[in-house]
């Protein structure tokens, strides 16, 4: 059974259709890169999978682990193992990172029928996870993402991912705004978190991140559809030639089926 099957997905923001019949299948153990020009619908896909209510699904289906993903509330999706690393992580002044992480961790444990952990047990767990993304423990006492640099915010996303141990990770433009050192730390974190039963969707505009997180499949998303799929070499080709050779002249009506 495939971990994720997206069929003819249509979604809009307000009155504007963004996804227009998108197909994608993701198997456990694989890394998929979704690339495409600005405004092609990459972020919309990521947000729709995570359940952002600002996006309205108007057609198609998404099956995750055999279940109807679109019927689930965002928190249930997270509890079931979906994780979206935000392109713009949200600042929440007044809530400490430690409190937030433990609340999320415990909610997910609760959903799995496991015992909640107390602050002391959680502190032990955090020590290990912080090392993972080369973060200082002082970051835990600060308010969530508040006053964090761009790199710190992205590392904080990967820290959350490390704590929550998702089955399907969606990285939305995680490389944007990162210098090369931060990019390496973030990519290392993602790579170390890979498991045979988990999958990763890397949404990105540039090929740069894919030097560090090597995809098994690369898909080109444009005009709200996957127009072309291939192996990791496709990313290099896109880097060299740009997106035009894929998107121009594409018959938007006939979606190129994609997937593993």
């Amino acid at each position, binding site marked *: 059974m495939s971990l994720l099957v997206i069929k003819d997905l249509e979604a809009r923001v307000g009155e504007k259709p963004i996804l227009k019949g998108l197909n994608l299948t993701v198997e456990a153990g694989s890394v998929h890169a979704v690339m495409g020009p600005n405004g092609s619908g990459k972020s919309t896909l990521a947000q729709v999978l*995570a*359940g*952002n*209510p*600002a996006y309205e699904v108007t057609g198609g289906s998404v099956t995750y682990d055999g279940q109807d993903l679109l019927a689930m*509330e*965002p*928190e249930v*999706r*997270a*509890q079931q193992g979906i*994780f*979206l690393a*935000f392109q713009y*992580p*949200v600042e*929440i*002044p*007044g*809530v400490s990172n430690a*409190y*937030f992480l433990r*609340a*999320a961790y415990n*909610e*997910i444990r609760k*959903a799995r029928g496991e015992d909640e952990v107390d602050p002391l047990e959680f502190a032990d767990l955090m020590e290990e996870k912080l090392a993972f993304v080369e973060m200082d423990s002082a970051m835990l006492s600060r*308010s969530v993402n508040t006053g964090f640099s761009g790199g710190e915010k992205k590392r904080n996303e990967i820290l*959350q991912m490390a704590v*929550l141990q998702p089955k399907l990770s969606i990285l939305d433009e995680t490389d944007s705004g990162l210098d090369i050192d931060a990019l390496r730390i973030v990519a290392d974190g993602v790579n170390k978190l890979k498991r045979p039963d988990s999958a990763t969707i890397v949404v990105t505009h540039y090929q740069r991140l894919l030097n560090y997180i090597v995809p098994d499949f690369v898909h080109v998303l444009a005009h709200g559809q996957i127009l072309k799929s291939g192996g990791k070499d496709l990313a290099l080709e896109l880097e060299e030639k740009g997106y035009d050779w894929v998107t121009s002249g594409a018959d938007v009506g006939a979606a190129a089926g994609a997937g593993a």
Partner: protein
Amino acid sequence: MSSAAEPYVAAFDALTDSGGTPQLAELRRAAFERFAALGFPTTKNEDWHFTSVAPIAEQEFTLLTAPSGAVRHEALAPFLFDASHHVMTFVNGRFEPTLSNIGTLPDGVTLIDLASTWTSAPELAERIGRLTGYQNASFTALNTAFMQDGAVLAIAADVVVDAPIHLLFVTDATAAKGMIHPRNLIVVGRNAKAAVIESYVALSDAMYLTNAVTEVSMADGATLQHYKMQREAARAFHVGTIEVAQARDSHYVSFAFTMGALLSRSNVYTTLDGEGCGATLNGLVMLGDEQHADVQTQIIHAQPNCYSRELYKNVLDNRSHGVFNGKVYVHPIAQKTDGKQTNKTLLLSEGAHMDTKPQLEIFADDVKCTHGATIGQIDATALFYLKSRGVSEGLARQLLTYAFAADVLETIELDAVRESLERMTLERFV
């Protein structure tokens, strides 16, 4: 005489017949006459524009004259912050020594009940009513006419009171349909320092009226942290006025927490009447159901080189209604005044309503005075972010509500009070 006073004439006559010094009798008589002339304020009065006190005016409250006798010590535990505090307890408006734990106060500190002050400390008693005028304040006039008890605290020069003094006003079920008029006096001497907590709490769901007045006099260099916890019963009415007079280099810090009562009005007024003064007036109002809470602050900058800081936050749920009116007057001589006022409101439901009215009147030309007010809802992006991490809708809203209030709670210097309020804030909107 207005009709407002008629229901209270008999109680007033009985009270004045029951004894007291001639000085007190005169104070009462003048105040009752003034109340009779003023009546209860209406919404035509600019200071009461958003708050109708008709539910109070329509009642005929009984003057409570004795404590209940039925309150047990254990019942007070939820309202005490820390065992180290000096606690003076009043039940249904009257001092209850057996429920108090005043402990040992430093030399130079007087803490007595108002009822005995008239005879035991006349030099303090004669200061009652000096700071707060009632010519245009119906409720203060009513309080002055009917005041029976409260705390009288005097701190001599240079004395630092380490542990906070907690004035705990409790009502129980026998207060139903009753009214109490607590009257407190706090006199902080030169370079003296103290922290005072005034709590108004209920042990029952009775309907009653608390109409409190606290006068605070601060000498040169005095420092006072003054906390007011309004946690009255859900159907109760609360009107409270704190009036402060600050001399040179004194620093007054107020934190007012409003969570109780069906209808409440809380006034905090201070006059910075010496150079180098600072006033910080902060507060948090958390309402639900049909609650209505009106906060009015007034800061009078009467001398140069003083600062004032104000941060009031409201969290309003259900069909509750909040009102904030922040007045700042800067006299012509009060140059170099530095004032900042902020009022922020979080509306948790469609039916909640906020009226906010900054009111700055500045007559000096070299001052820095700013004000800002915002009214908003829970941020949908932040809500989604939390939910996307597995946090349930309920907990996510709770966290974001808490986060909204966090910065004003962080200003509370007393750890025990801050932690208690943080807990109450987190648990209020579950």
